[in-house]
């Protein structure tokens, strides 16, 4: 944000936002001797519950402390919330990383992005517990800062946000995974493709006659992001797998020779995680499917 680029000078009585903590009021700026060094500390009181925090003045910038957003920032946040632009990343790892960054360094707009992103994602499928918590935290911080910025009650700030996110008289839209995929770039497509390949690899462990059609089915199922469908595909694969697990490694090797696609995929996997897997086992059966499951 623009404020972080400017020098942050704090005085007693200023309202500031401590990332991930909320709106605080500066209660004192004083020098103290700590371990033989004289440091200037900014003492703040969190408005929500009165918790006191002391920050060395030199670290104020690096922790992301900023002044409460101005009217222009609020306007930008509302126009962003009104827009239909933000689609969350379907890759849960990337999404989590981005959201943590937005929460700590994104300012008011970052909070709005997290709220909007997760709200739109929830229209595709229910949020997992951690993300539901994150959504609640982001919403709480957003509402508190908006209330401080607009000088209104929190309930008014929350209603003004939700009036935009949940317009009266309009049905909650139902999203499709395609919307998210087209909004994300090519990279996501590749990552999802890898996940499909991993599951495809598992499917090939099944009885020989069902290999081709089963794989296609699994891919079709996995293309839908609903976790149940993926779980179903995996379970199917696991059910088929026991019969094939017992035969010796040569049979597997022979199968792999017969299907030229797999070694390429396996190599991809091995290249991605070289330190974990021994050279003789290019593709692990169970572990790679986990990230795909949690999406």
């Amino acid at each position, binding site marked *: 944000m623009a404020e972080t680029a400017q020098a942050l000078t704090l005085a007693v009585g200023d309202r500031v936002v401590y990332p991930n903590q909320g709106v605080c009021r500066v209660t004192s700026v004083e020098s103290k001797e700590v371990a033989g060094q004289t440091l200037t500390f900014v003492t703040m009181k969190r408005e929500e519950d009165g918790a006191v925090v002391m920050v060395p003045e030199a670290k104020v910038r690096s922790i992301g402390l900023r002044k409460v957003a101005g009217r222009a920032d609020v306007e930008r946040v509302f126009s962003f919330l009104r827009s239909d632009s933000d689609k969350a990343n379907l890759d849960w790892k990337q999404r989590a990383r981005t959201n943590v960054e937005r929460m700590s360094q994104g300012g008011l707009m970052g909070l709005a992005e997290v709220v909007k992103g997760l709200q739109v994602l929830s229209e595709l499928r229910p949020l997992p517990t951690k993300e539901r918590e994150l959504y609640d935290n982001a919403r709480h911080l957003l509402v508190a800062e908006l209330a401080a910025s607009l000088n209104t009650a929190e309930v008014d700030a929350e209603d*003004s946000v939700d009036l935009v996110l949940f317009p009266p008289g309009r049905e909650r839209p139902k999203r499709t995974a395609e919307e998210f995929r087209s909004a994300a770039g090519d990279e996501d497509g590749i990552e999802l493709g890898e996940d499909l390949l991993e599951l495809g690899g598992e499917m090939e462990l099944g009885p020989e006659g069902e290999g081709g059609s089963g794989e296609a089915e699994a891919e079709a199922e996995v293309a839908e992001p609903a976790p149940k469908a993926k779980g179903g595909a995996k379970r199917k694969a696991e059910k088929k797998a026991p019969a094939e697990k017992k035969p010796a490694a040569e049979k597997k090797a022979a199968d792999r020779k017969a299907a030229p696609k797999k070694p390429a995929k396996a190599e991809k996997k091995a290249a991605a995680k070289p330190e974990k897997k021994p050279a003789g086992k290019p593709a692990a059966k169970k572990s790679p499917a986990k990230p795909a499951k949690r999406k």
Partner: protein
Amino acid sequence: MIRLVTLDAYDPKVIDRLCKMLYTAFGVGCEHAGDMPLPAGQHEPFDAQELLKALPSPRAYADDKILYLTSRKLKPRSVISGDVPCSGFTNQNGPRALVSSAAVKDPEAGLKQIARHAMHQLGHTWELHHCLDPRCAMYPPWTLNYDAGDTFFETFCRDKSEQRIRLAKS
């Protein structure tokens, strides 16, 4: 403890059932704390915020929540992004909440709807925010089909409200 104060005449059976529904929803006791007249100088449709401010509080403990129930209409509230249709009002983490049953012609038949709105406002008093699940009572109350929903809290909202109630000093 939830203390229900009626600002208009209601059938005692309806109040009794409403208390039971709120008890089931929050897991804390709910009782009818009596009737109270509407403050003078205000006219229908009422400004919910002003009305709540003008209402006197009954005797209650520090962590008790007071729910005022009226059959009068409430004025839509103006916020920065537009007008919010108003079926009740409370301040986040405040001790008092106001709910209107004006949208329900027969309180006995529409008790579920009144209870859902009451749960919503009481949820705000326990610091719950609006929820993403349309089935949950904390979903924004002005949305389509909200009134047709059940008296239900989504798992996250239920856990959070229970946690807040457990943390209460009294």
